[in-house]
């Protein structure tokens, strides 16, 4: 199976202004990250703040320039492509953000918002055709097409996210990058949008990078999951497997912190101690070792290589076999 998206050795450093302590050393937001996404596959990226998950999303969307590494989409290297060279790519990969209206003109109607990508890419053939396409997209995401002349503020949070999804689907993309797409929604609405995303993804055979901090949601939506910490991949495995048999101490800590809506499942919680180290000055060797209960002196010497723990399951921990 050929990958639709291949990311290799991705690095993103952000410059910081020189200060008393930092002396202009870069923030290492993403450090040597590699993964691939097959056509129709959902890869979940999970991690806490500072893990680099959103930066990776922006890099894959080419909204940001990587410091090093390559991004190939459908066999083509798009890492350094110009905006012109990216035109075709932009049609095929679409974003869904947490708040689709955060950056949009509140004076645009829903029709204009959903049709905007069509207009930008010169695919809006006539007003009637465009309106028909918008109406069709609205029905697809469960909105009433009779409301296409309304404005964003006339819709609830869940409906707005449906509009964001309709806009992403306007170009009939091959891949979606969804960054915290359901995180801000009310509990009773989140399930609607999760079901919608999963239904559309399967029906349309979309590949998807699903970025979120909620492990239960990520597991539910994704086929495979990559766990990130301080800009590096800690573990990758099929979704069910990473939850049932995690093979990295950070994944285990993350799972242990998940609060289940069930008072009888209060587990003996392993509360992760300490603070996230500075991404300006990350620990040597394994970046998680400073908070890891299994850390030994060897963990400080080299960045651990991935160890194969099963079919499609790798862990960047030198003690993975003992866990």
């Amino acid at each position, binding site marked *: 199976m050929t990958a639709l998206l291949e990311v290799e050795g991705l690095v993103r450093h952000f410059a910081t202004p020189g200060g008393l302590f930092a002396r202009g050393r870069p923030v290492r937001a993403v450090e040597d990250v590699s993964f691939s996404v097959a056509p129709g596959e959902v890869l979940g990226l999970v991690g806490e703040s500072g893990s680099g998950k959103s930066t990776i999303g922006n890099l894959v969307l080419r909204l940001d320039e990587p410091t090093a590494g390559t991004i190939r989409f459908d066999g083509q290297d798009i890492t350094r492509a110009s905006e012109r060279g990216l035109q075709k790519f932009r049609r095929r990969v679409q974003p869904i953000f947490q708040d689709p209206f955060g950056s949009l003109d509140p004076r645009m109607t829903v029709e204009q918002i959903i049709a905007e990508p069509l207009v930008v890419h010169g695919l809006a053939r006539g007003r009637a055709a465009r309106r028909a396409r918008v109406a069709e997209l609205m029905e697809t995401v469960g909105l009433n097409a009779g409301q296409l002349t309304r404005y964003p503020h006339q819709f609830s949070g869940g409906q707005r996210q449906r509009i964001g999804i309709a806009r992403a689907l306007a170009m009939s993309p091959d891949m979606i990058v969804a960054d915290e797409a359901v995180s801000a929604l009310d509990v009773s609405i989140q399930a609607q949008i999760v079901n919608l995303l999963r239904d559309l993804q399967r029906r349309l055979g979309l590949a998807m990078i699903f970025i979120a901090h909620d492990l239960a949601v990520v597991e539910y939506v994704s086929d495979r999951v990559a766990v990130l910490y301080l800009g590096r991949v800690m573990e990758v495995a099929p979704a069910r497997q990473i939850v049932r048999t995690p093979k990295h101490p950070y994944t285990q800590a993350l799972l242990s912190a998940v609060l*289940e809506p069930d008072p*009888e499942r209060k587990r003996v919680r392993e509360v992760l101690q300490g603070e996230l180290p500075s991404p300006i000055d990350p620990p040597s060797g394994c970046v998680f070792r400073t908070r890891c209960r299994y850390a030994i002196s060897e963990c400080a010497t080299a960045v651990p290589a991935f160890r194969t723990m099963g079919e499609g399951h790798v862990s960047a921990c030198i003690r993975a076999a003992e866990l």
Partner: protein
Amino acid sequence: MSAKLLDVRDLRVEFATDTGVVPAVAGLSFAIDAGETLVIVGESGSGKSVTSLAIMGLVPRPPGRIAGGEMLFRTRDGRVRDLAQTNAAEMQRLRGAEIAMIFQEPMSALNPVYTIGEQITETLLLHERLGKRAARARSIEMLTLLGIPEPARRFDAYPHQLSGGMRQRAMIAMALSCRPSLLIADEPTTALDVTVQAQILDLIRRLQKELGMAVIFITHNLGVAAEIADRILVMYAGQAVETGPTQAIFRETRMPYTTGLLASVPRLGMDRDAAPLQAIPGNVPSFSDLPPGCAFAPRCAHVRPTPCEARRPDLEPCGPEHAVRCARWREIAA
């Protein structure tokens, strides 16, 4: 005299808007004992945060006002005061000293131009008439209690120099410095990472035991509720729709809305191919267009024209200390 620490009876809070007066809290009653944890669960617009502002005497006025009801609070000297009738000066004395509040966003409670230490000592100087040196010692003691490393150094740090989790701890230190008997925590872990959330919840639980305070914890997260609640109150459209001991809420759920919330949360290791998540259809209601009958009726799978749409059901007992606002709960449970 009430034995309760706080006894809220038929609280009504209204807001004047362009489209008319909106009843954000529409007849809410609950009580909390000393040392107890009550979790108020609700989605946006349920009235849960307005309830906490009402207790703190912080409903912005105008456009808001307390339109009715009592909030009977037993003060440290053993007297009972109605917070709905307490004047601003007296409320100011109670806030911080006996009732404290922590928020989702610590930067909304911390002043960026003062050090953490200055802000904690300010509370102590104001309420406890401690000398400067004693206030400093007590502040550093609070920072230590909150598990802040190098407390003497953090005392002189500004809020922006701390991480999100540390700021949250600093805000809690500030709130608890005068040992209040009631802490109101409004989504204090919502913006935090899960591992930091686990740390802060452990901390709140530990401090509650050590200081013997009651906690009203407001959240939309049922996982958080399951973790820390003694009792749970589920709010919908400004009213309590189910209330009871934590076990009863999760094990003998009676309100279709609560059932729906529980079913809509994905759980670790669940079989996604068995069936889609059971989402609650429709949207979270807005106060301006509530139906005359049960507020949840438009989204409820068990709705019947009568009795559901005829009139708003009462909150009625359905088990030991367990009450539900559903006219059909008996039929549904059967």
